[in-house]
């Protein structure tokens, strides 16, 4: 589903991502873990076509992110860590805007919005302006807008930040359903317990380099993800 080959991104002299290679197959949830400034968001943004990169290649379902950016974006959904949305719109108007961007027919979007808004408990707030939303509400709306067009690849940057326990549980369920239906998920998180329970595979990045990447069971062995992470970082 997602193939990142020798990805390198430089900001002036510093390599934010350095020769990073990882693959995610359909049906996998891949957890991307690293300290602040390790290169997680840079990698994620490069995958989503938001940030140009200097070397390497990224393909999503066989489509090259540089050569076929629009095709890649049609089958991808991105949820940022800080969901800055259009505050001059109401929730429902924002969702309709995103649905128009992805060309979702009216009947289908109505059903999807109703279903997802109900799942996240946001139905009653859809008419409110986004300026009145809390961070958690905006996060929920960003998740709903990302899932509306049924993407093949879900790319999320710390998606659980700001979500209440019910919404977190709902998101985990949706993630499971998504991969069971053949999709893939690539997400970064600082909440290692969630990554440990949810992810099939994990990658740990530090200073732009991938220190470890593999099946969760193989990476963990008899330790917890926290111990593995701290051990690698200290080395």
């Amino acid at each position, binding site marked *: 589903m997602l193939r990142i080959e020798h990805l390198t991104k430089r900001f002036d002299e510093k390599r934010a991502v350095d020769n990073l290679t990882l693959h995610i197959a359909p049906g996998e949830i891949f957890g991307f873990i690293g300290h602040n400034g390790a290169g997680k968001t840079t990698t994620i943004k490069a995958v989503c*076509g*938001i940030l140009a990169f200097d070397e390497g290649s990224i393909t999503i379902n066989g489509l090259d992110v540089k050569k076929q950016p629009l095709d890649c*974006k049609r089958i991808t959904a991105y949820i940022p860590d800080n969901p800055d949305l259009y505050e*001059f719109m109401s929730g429902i108007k924002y969702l309709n805007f995103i649905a128009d*961007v992805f*060309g979702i027919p009216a009947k289908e979007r109505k059903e999807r919005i109703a279903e997802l808004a109900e799942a996240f408990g946001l139905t009653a707030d859809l008419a409110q302006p986004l300026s009145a939303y809390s961070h958690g509400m905006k996060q929920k709306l960003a998740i709903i807008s990302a899932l509306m067009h049924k993407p093949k690849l879900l790319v999320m940057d710390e998606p659980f930040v700001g979500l209440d326990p019910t919404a977190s549980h709902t998101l985990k369920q949706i993630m499971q359903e998504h991969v069971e239906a053949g999709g893939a998920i690539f997400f970064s998180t600082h909440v290692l317990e969630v990554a440990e329970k949810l992810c099939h595979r994990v990658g740990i990045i530090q200073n732009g380099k991938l220190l470890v990447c593999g099946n969760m069971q193989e990476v963990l062995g008899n330790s917890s993800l926290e111990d593995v992470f701290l051990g690698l970082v200290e080395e």
Partner: protein
Amino acid sequence: MLRKLFFIQLKGAYSNLLRIGHSKKTGKTNPLVPIIMAALILYAMCSMMVALGYMYYTMAQSFVPLGLSWLLFAYAGFVSFCSSSFMCIFMSQSMLFEARDNPLLLALPIKPKTILGSRLMVLYFSELVTIIPCLVPAGAIYAWYFKTEPLFYVLFTLTILLLPLLSVAVSALIGFLVSLLARRMRNQNFFTILFYFAFIGIYFWAVRYLNGSGMQQLIASGVSMATSYQRLLPPFYYLGQALTRLDLLSALYAALWILLPFALIMLLLSKTFISFATSSKKTKRIAYKEKLIKQKGLSSALLLKELKRFAATPMYLLNSGFGYILEIGLGVYIFFAGVEKIIPPELNLSSMAILGCVAVLSFCAGMSYTTAPSISLERDSLWILRSGPIPTGKIFDAKIAMNLVLGFPAIIITGTLISLRLHPSLQDAILLFTLPLAVQWFTAQHGLLCNLLFPKLDGINDTIIVKQSASVLAATFISLGSLAVMIFLFVAGVLLLGINYFITGLILLAIILAIDVGLLLFLRTKGVKMFERI
């Protein structure tokens, strides 16, 4: 701490201007760019000062023989106060009551009065920078006209330093009232826009009432004007008396008239600042009802988004859309009042009325630069456009289309109203409609290019982006400069080369359209790459 906060806030407010020419990619600053920008700003300021100086000189010649030399400073003070208050009124609301860093600063061990004080100091600095070019020419003319004593210079310097306090007080009070009332309204943005329209209307009416409709009327009605100032504008009356008679008692009265309102308003602000900064805007809850949804195409969705942002952002609408309002105002005025009050019949220039309207409409079109801040206004939500399957060309089209969707009808309506009143010939009518439309397209495109060259995605609020960003300044200069070039070329063609004015107009139209097409091609190719590098 107050000093530190002041410099941080000042830097934040003017950061785009300070970093102009700086390339994020290379990390280096091109020294030519800030030099050119500084030169342009200086040129604009000097031009304004020279124009005002000439006006004050003409006034001095009329007022001095009447024994009304004080009226020169009263008028100059009032004009300076009005200009600075008007320029900073939007800034005061967003800076004092809607600053995004209020929660952060209030959580730190910094006294709220220090936070408020630092913001007021930034406002004061902004007002001072606006007042100086308005007031200094009056002082220079007076000093040149009369042999003045050293005390005059002391009092004049104090005037320059004190007058901004009155502007700060008035703009802060208006900002406070708007914020206070808007919080209680369901449609806050609509209320804010309505309020500022009303304020602008009252502002222009008051200026016209006190100063007359033109230079000649201003000078002719000197005595009645003096009475109005004495009765209605005591701070400026006493300022005038203090500076011309070097009367310290008048100076004291003037200072009291400035400092007392300032102190009262500062007291009000200090009592209400925390509650404003920490309270959430209470809006009436809107119940969600499932409605029939219509699918729109990508282009329509993007255009609608741009229009929604424009209508929902008062500062954006009032600043970048001011040209549209002027156009319609011009059309309505000429339709009802004709051009006799603008062009006195004795000048025998009524045949030039249509050409004058073309120039004014083109000026208004040039001042409708909605595209110049449009990329910057995306700010942290730019990821939505970047991550969606949206071709960059479509993003540009939507931003330009928004400008034209508003601008073209405004020009057509205004042109129609002018035509109904002045009955132009076919040739005149062609120029009346086509030239401003071509200029509108040019404005939309060059504004977008300016924003691609000088994006400001880290603006602390929309007001800073719309009023002070480098892209907006650059777009303004380009609009004014190109209008000057247009007029020069037209005059050169008709008067120097003897070409028929209609043919000259058509040549000018062809040039503008050629530039427009060039810009279109540039935006589609290099412009796309520039956007993707932001």
